[in-house]
């Protein structure tokens, strides 16, 4: 098994007829993801990669049956509507790819997710990839590259940066460390499933023996992961790198989530807290794969 996505999960793509929707549907299908329907209002009857398109999620559900996961590729101002639509139609996992979703929209999605018992990943995420199982979003870009970059194995990856998710996956595979699932939690200040939520899933996953985490300054996700280790809720080896050491306080370099407010979420604090509870934190990103290889080799 893997976390979040496997071969049997029935996947819908919202915004399937747009530029990104089309390109990424192709990736998902070719990588083996079970994409069963798409929707774009007003485009019912069309097909993308041979997948039928419907006007709404509810309609898709009536026509093709239950949907486990929806992946959203609509412009940021329309994301809230799309996410709520999916959740109210009973979809239990929603992956929100777009960047620049207004934060109050995210808060409302969060609220509805609690009401409907759904979960969401993102916004501003590259998605999730479970090696040889399926991909949600755009990790790898093309199926052929995704297949050559990521080798199957037992290390899970969770990252706050999209590009770094892919990099870690590739570099680990290159030194012979195989992967279970890669998760980009999203770069925004509020995301549906921050590191600790992903870590909890990895704990339960039989296919995952160790986790590599790319953290960043800002927010308290990494500190919460440390809490999980301390309380015994996460027991597998954790190898981590925290980015943004050189960033100035209050300045934002690209990720909205990576802004230090006051003393909270500082680089130093995160590293210290993780080391305290016994996690491995490397000082240089380039040490991540070799260090992981050594640790996994001993398991």
């Amino acid at each position, binding site marked *: 098994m893997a976390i979040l996505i496997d071969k049997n999960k029935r996947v819908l793509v919202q915004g399937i007829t747009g530029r990104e929707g089309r390109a990424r549907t192709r990736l998902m299908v070719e990588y083996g993801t079970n994409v069963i329907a798409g929707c774009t209002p007003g485009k019912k009857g069309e097909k993308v990669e041979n997948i039928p398109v419907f006007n709404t999620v509810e309609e898709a559900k009536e026509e093709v049956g239950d949907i486990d996961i929806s992946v959203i590729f609509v412009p940021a101002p329309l994301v809230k509507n799309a996410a709520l639509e999916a959740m109210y139609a009973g979809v239990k996992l929603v992956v929100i790819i777009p960047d620049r979703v207004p934060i109050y929209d995210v808060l409302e999605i969060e609220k509805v997710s609690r009401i409907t018992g759904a979960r969401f990943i993102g916004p501003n995420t590259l998605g999730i990839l479970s090696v040889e199982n399926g991909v949600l979003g755009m990790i790898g870009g093309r199926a052929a590259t995704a297949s050559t970059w990521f080798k199957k194995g037992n290390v899970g990856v969770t990252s706050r*940066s*999209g590009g770094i998710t*892919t990099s870690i996956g590739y570099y680990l595979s290159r030194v012979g460390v195989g992967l279970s699932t890669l998760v980009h939690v999203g770069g925004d200040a509020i995301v549906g499933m921050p590191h600790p939520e992903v870590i909890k899933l990895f704990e339960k996953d039989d296919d995952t023996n160790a986790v590599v985490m790319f953290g960043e300054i800002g927010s308290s996700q990494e500190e919460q992961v440390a809490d999980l280790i301390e309380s015994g809720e996460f027991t597998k080896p954790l190898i981590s790198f925290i980015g943004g050491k050189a960033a100035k306080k209050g300045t934002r370099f690209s990720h*909205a989530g990576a802004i230090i407010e006051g003393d909270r979420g500082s680089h130093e604090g995160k590293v210290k807290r993780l080391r305290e509870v016994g996690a491995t934190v490397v000082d240089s990103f380039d040490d991540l794969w070799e260090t992981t290889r050594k640790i996994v080799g001993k398991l």
Partner: protein
Amino acid sequence: MARLFEYQSKELLKKQNIPVPSGKVCQTPKQASDAAREINKPVAIKAQTWFTGRAAVGGIGFAENPEEASGIAKNILGKTIRNFTVGEVLVEEKLSIKDEMFASITIDDLERAPVLLFSLKGGSGIEKIARDYPESIIKYTIDINSGLRDFEALNLLRKFDIEGKILLQVSRLLVNLVKVALAYEARSVEINPIAVTEEGKVFAADCRITVDDYAVFRHPDLGITYARELDAPPTPLDKLAYSIEKDDYRGTFYFIQLEKNFKKNERYLGFHGAGGGGSMMSMDAIQRRGYKLANFCDTSGNPPASKVYRAAKIILSQKGIDGYFGSGSGVASQEQIHSARGLVKAFLEENLNIPAVIRLGGNMEEKAVEILQNYTKGVPAPVEGYTKDDSADYCAERMDELLKEYKPLKDNKKPEVGLKKVDYEFETVTGSVKFQYDLCMKCSSKICIESCEPNILKLENGAPVLAVSVADAKKGKCTECLGCELECRMHGENGCYVDLPVEDFA
């Protein structure tokens, strides 16, 4: 985050029925004395900046009469406070303050909701208040749909022994403050202090609001033309970059100017990253070698070549930079040929005279590096492309070596850009594609046709025309991939030009 000045913030409070001292924003000493005359009471004159702690650096003064107000305003206007040149002062009635309280609303990543903080003690920063009077603070999570109801506010304040008349005013203020935060999608709102006057009236004596950058488009009434986190007002270049990004949802383009006043040979580089996490690491790698960054830039999330091109043009418009360093996460999911093409077009048009090292690791990286290196052979400076197996550190090393070796040309001439005459053109999402047919007639390759990936060009009487409708091309069928222009430059007769205005883009 889009920060509002105190006077702008107070306008929003006023609209939501939160009492603020009567006042006026002024740009000149004359306006300040007029405002003081109108108020007809002792006034406070306050520099409008984005920072707290203005009083300590002479950003606030008090005047008994209009003449004094003019003098103080003269002192404050034009002052530089932490990078920030004061252009406006707020002249307002001076309150006789008996008590100070504090209220703020921020979005809390643990609660995943807006959180109201209220303290019976105000004046200093909330960190200090929390340290000195922890028992004076209450924290309350707000429901984004229902806001804060009157009874909730009153129940919250029960913990304190506030006199009835004041209690009602404070609770009403909190209810209305939550309304302001929700209405304007604030990342944070802070009233510090809430002033209780000798007369028993409650006012918002100071206020700061920051609006969510991503929601600015829903609040045109705020007149925010630039929504980015900065610690000083945006430079013209920041604004130009922002205007390019604002309405183009294809991929991300983020740009901030970090340094303006530098010259050649002061080790400043233009930086072009891809993806936040990888960009930060790449910046570290180059800074470790003693270089400084003129700007931060990130194009990621699969941007079209046109966006990368404009980003490169903007980076290169920083005249004093000694080199161009591009490096992101190293293993990008996006198709890197688009980035390569965008860079090539910019480098050719500028006749690149500073060395460039670009790490193009990711999808189609080999092709991307080939395009980058081969198509820029004609420019004076060396251009090197690298792939995912080359670390950011190695690329920084190469940058360093090239910078030591390369002597820029003294008088570098930019080539003429564009076509002599245009026989055929069509609009694209953000520009237009143009053709000069006498050149096309001489061309045997007609390579523009096959190099157009979305297949929207065809030959008609030996010359390229659109194979789809003009409207479709403009709506996005033309992906602005730059394939036609660049392949034509290499293998055709230069009859094609993709016109992507930068300067007057807004």
